[in-house]
């Protein structure tokens, strides 16, 4: 079995550079993929995840740069997006310290999906998405208009957010099984 390959990228947090950054990162990842992987199918997932991680950073982090640590192994792809910008607040949760692990905060809900932030520890949450039944009446006027977290959650096998208070470090982590 080949050894995992890791690389850190330092990227500008700007709207104009997203497309070129995504192309650079996708090129690196695809070159490391093991032979057994359906590259076309997995490339779609990786691309939409990278687009949304970087877009989210521009919208919310408020920093000039962002770090991406990428590891590709025989079994999975692990992407950590890190910045020292604004702390992410999931829904009405202002501090993870007051919630027990397993607590679910509803972030968004419409006739297609419910999105939750599930507390995993006093520093980490996991994003979870549930699809509504096809019989659920669809109120078109209530459709959500923010899809970033939903896309990353549905395109990945695990999507978490961790905040390091001491360092002021935000880390969004994505795992994709291969």
């Amino acid at each position, binding site marked *: 079995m080949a050894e995992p390959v890791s690389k850190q990228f330092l990227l500008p947090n700007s*709207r*104009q550079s*997203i*497309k070129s950054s995504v192309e650079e990162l996708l090129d690196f990842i695809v070159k490391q993929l093991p032979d057994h992987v359906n590259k076309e199918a997995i490339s*779609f997932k990786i*691309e*939409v995840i990278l*687009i*949304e991680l970087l*877009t989210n950073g*521009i*919208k919310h982090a408020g920093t000039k740069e962002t770090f991406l640590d990428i590891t590709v192994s025989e079994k999975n792809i692990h992407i950590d997006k890190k910045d020292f910008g604004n702390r992410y607040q999931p829904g009405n949760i202002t501090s993870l310290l007051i919630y027990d692990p397993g607590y679910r905060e509803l972030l968004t809900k419409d006739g*297609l*999906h419910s999105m939750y932030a599930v507390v995993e520890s006093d520093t980490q949450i996991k994003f979870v998405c549930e*699809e509504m039944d*096809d019989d659920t009446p*669809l109120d*078109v*006027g209530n*459709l*959500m*208009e*923010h*899809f*970033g977290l*939903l*896309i990353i959650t*549905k*395109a990945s096998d695990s999507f978490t957010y961790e905040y390091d208070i001491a360092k002021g470090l935000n880390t969004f982590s994505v795992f994709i099984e291969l």
Partner: protein
Amino acid sequence: MIKVYKELDDILLVKLDIKEASLENGDAFKAEVIKLFEKQQKSIAIDMSSVEYIDSSFLGSIVSVFKHLISFKSELVLVGLSKDITNLFALTRLDKVFKIYNNFDEISK
């Protein structure tokens, strides 16, 4: 950004003339389509075959326009989605919400 290609009795056929549909131009797209709708008061079909890249912000703008037109008993119809954008609509389940056609001919029939 949008150009009227043809006007039918009940729907306007419009081409979206951008390659990158993103955070950068989502608000402008929304404003242009709503302005066109307010002038013409018809459903709108948008050909997106020139779009190679789309992000969630632009997707949100499309949904916002769709909701606006629906509230006036009209529709926003999508045409000519690339394979990746089709996959994105399937992932977000928006393919259950929008009418999606391969080309304008399918609408005109």
